[in-house]
């Protein structure tokens, strides 16, 4: 089920050297990076159950190896148009405050080692919805990587609930 499981803590010693490892993902064509120690695993969401009356960002709940995972549609969360069809979707498994969440994304990229010093603040004119959950931007060759702040992605939703 899981394409490439990352065990938490793999990046534990990287922060000392000023390097942070990111798992990159694509959502609506944009490159995002999640600090690797936040990522529990990567999986293909299967047989999702809708949850009536829930927030629109919540795609549903699903069974991942005996745990119930709440899946969050990141496109909706970011105010992007929804994808057509269900083929090839992926999810990033996150543990947050003792619960399991799955962020549904379009595609998983690679693992990048980036210099913590290279991180830049959000541009002032960034879409509010994005600024809310972005922990800054890294300039890579040819593209920009937005850092996805997991705490903020989920924390805001919990507040709203």
């Amino acid at each position, binding site marked *: 089920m899981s394409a490439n499981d990352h065990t938490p803590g793999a990046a534990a010693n990287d922060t000392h050297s000023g390097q942070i490892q990111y798992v990159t993902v694509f959502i609506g064509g944009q490159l995002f990076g999640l600090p690797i120690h936040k990522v529990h695993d990567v999986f293909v969401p299967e*047989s999702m*159950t*809708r*949850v*009536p*009356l*829930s*927030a629109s960002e*919540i795609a*549903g*709940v*699903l*069974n991942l190896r*005996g745990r*119930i995972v*709440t899946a969050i549609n990141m496109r909706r969360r970011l105010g992007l148009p929804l994808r057509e069809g269900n083929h090839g979707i992926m999810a990033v498994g996150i543990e947050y*405050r003792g*619960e399991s*969440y799955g962020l549904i994304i379009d595609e998983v990229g690679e693992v990048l080692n980036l210099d913590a010093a290279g991180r830049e603040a959000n541009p002032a004119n960034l879409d509010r919805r994005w600024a809310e959950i972005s922990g800054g931007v890294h300039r890579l060759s040819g593209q920009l990587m937005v850092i996805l702040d997991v705490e903020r992605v*989920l924390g805001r*939703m*919990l507040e709203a*609930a």
Partner: protein
Amino acid sequence: MDDLLREFLTETNESLDVVDVELVKFEQEPNNARILDNIFRLVHTIKGTCGFLGLPRLEALAHAAETLMGKFREGAPVTQDAVSLILQTIDRIKGILAELEANEGEEPKGEDRDLISQLEAMSLAGDAAKAEAKKAPQAAPAPKKEAAGGTLVQQVLERELRPGEVSLDELERAFRETEVEVETPEVPVAAVVEEAPVVAAPQQAGIDFNRVAAEIEARMKQAQPEARVEKAAKVVTEDSDADSKGDSKGSVSSQSIRVNVETLEHLMTMVSELVLTRNQLLEIVRRHEDSEFKVPLQRLSNVTAELQEGVMKTRMQPIGNAWQKLPRIVRDLAQELGKQIELEMIGAETELDRQVLELIKDPLTHMVRNSADHGLERPEDRKKVGKSEKGVIKLSAYHEGGHIIIEIADDGRGLNMERIRQKIIENGLATEAELEKMTENQIYKYIFAPGFSTAAKVTSVSGRGVGMDVVRTNIETIGGTVDLKSVAGKGSTFTIKIPLTLAIVSTLIVESCGDRFAIPQLSVVELVRVQSNSEHRIERIKDTPVLRLRNKLLPLVPLANLLNMEVSAEKSEDEGFIVVMQVGNVTFGLVVDGVFHTEEIVVKPMSKMLRHITMFSGNTILGDGSVIMIIDPNGVASAIGTAVASELVDHHDADKQRGVENDAKISMLLFRAGSAEPKAVPLSLVTRLEEFEIEKIEHSNGRDLVQYRGSLMPLVYPNYDVHRREEGTQPMLVFSDAGRSMGLVVDEIVDIVEESLNIQVGSDVPGILGSAVIKGKATEILDIGHYLPLAFEDWFKRKEISSAALTRKLLFLDDSAFFRNMLGPVMKAAGFDVTVCASATDAMRLLGDGQLFDVIVSDIEMPVVNGFEFAEMLRRDARFKRTPIIALSALCTPASIERGRQSGFDEYVAKFDRPGLIAALKEITSADYGIAA
């Protein structure tokens, strides 16, 4: 840390908790020797064990406390100061224990001379006899010396001694138990005593044994000290024997063992997984008709179920465990704050999952503290407002539909609305304008906001700004909710609702709009299949769907509507299944598209992100591996809300009433109308309770009407003072009979109580039968018979009834004015010409005068001549041999019914069973009519 020490720590902590509670009790009843004995025993055990483990500080403390308590036993007066001192000592011991645990078994350095000398002084003071007084200071240093000397030895002996150490424990236990069972010594004393030192480690066990034995003798001068010693000795022998042989028979403690909680947790998780896997297997086998797996799987299934039950049981603990510390806390607070507080605890035996129990301990303690500190007033303030000086904090727990409800109520001053408002504005939580729009309850809820404290002065107890938000967070982490009610001057009540998250529930799997949902079977009454052309079909009143089910109208709600799901256009609305559900008093039908099977599920708590959805109580993984949401019947019921009025008088209740108890209690509906005094009507007369929106009340032809179930229902006001509301909803009691309904408008429905009714003061005011004491208050009993004709002038003479051609003459005997007044109109309504008598003799006089009746209804319990005798008398007279007689009694046992039959009654009806009475009358008179014609 040493296993033994670890065990000592847990055990001692538990004992200390008990000591806390017992001491507070003891302070209140200082003459209760049993409580004192219990405390003494516990402290003594602690002392003994400490001495053994080489913990001199603890031992010295325990000993000094024990000495003081010894004085109590000898009759020294129990003062508050003395108890406080002992409690203080217990606290010190707890402190040392905590450090001991943190330091991996090393007793912290320090001096307890302060406490010990106080204890000793108190012992001296408390002691009248000088000789006794000398003992205390002597006794104190003694164990110290011994322990100091013993440290070295102890180290050396540590490993070898272990059997001996356990023996000491057993010895103490035996000592405790010997108080109960002392008889029949089996082994000669000498033999045992000789044997013991040889088998067990001699020195230490010997010393302690003697000490304990000596103390037993000294303290209990009652009979058979020898037998006790012997018993104790025997246990020592056996135990050491067992240890040396490596088997464990005969140990007193083998009945129960301590298991690490983690082990249990793990076991539970594994069992849950096993259940899910079993479900998956069952699912697979269900698809293959002739599978050879079927039989073994069935067995596996049964075993799994039992295993699951067993593991669940190990986790259940009475909630009283979480309350144990509270009496002590409340006592200390009362002293500190100068208040008088009584702590009432109800439902301590209510069991809940231990994990949940652990998590609510702290919030509960906090809330009780809050009630004591903020809630209750000082005695002088209480006196001023006419309350008793002693404030009451009531703690209660009970199960309700898969939840545990815990209430913390105080009879104090209630929350200070003004102060809360100020604080909200100060903290910028809301603006004044926003506050204006909020209800009181919404404003009260702000006390759960972070950093919110209204305490004007910071006491050591509360007012530090941390508190209720932590309480709320803690409760919410386990999927619970906390709510509060407050009445200024009357007190406030906090209600905590915690789900039994780990409970295993049997559910019905249903489908709606292509999604499956699980409904807990507990609230499912029955299933009905509806089709537009079948007997059961969905009908509509305006747009409200209803179902006729056994002559009752069942309100229906499509699940899809409740869950706001998109209904596909081509689906027929009138075909599907109705899940008839009952939640509390509310019965309603949930319309679903399909019903599958039932399945046992392990409820898993929902993600916090979904927890606000009240329609669901949790989710789970089904046999096929998919996740399913579990419907919360309570949530659904409250969503339906007032649309479905409480079906208070359905068959279910009538059944209950048929078995009414002997002391003739009846259910009364209490309400307010026009004035502050409560009013009441017997619940059995009320068909239902309704609330109508004010806009729905129409005015026509000089009277108020509402459209109700397809027809117009006139509204009647009990008096002119009933508050006619301008907006919102108006509550009313609906009385229906044979398709006609009347709404009696009231201000507020207060309660339903069961009490024996005794009208003490009659009334001349029309519409009121008189006054009775209900719930300790004078209450007006309404005469419904007066109001029915106000709604329909012809209520008592309706066409369908007079179609029975002639009104039949009925004689009704009852010694109770209430029942004469209550049932007379009822029978009149059923088309009879009713003559009422207050006694059998009156009735005989009437009959003797030559009056003829078609039917006689008689009470059984009457003075002078009772119903049985009356019936027997009638049957002996040729004139009345064939007159139908119906017995009416509060006592409906098979024996009394049989007695009634023998006496000549044709029917036997319970007094509160109005429909039963009418049915009996109809049946008897129509049969009679048939014969006559």
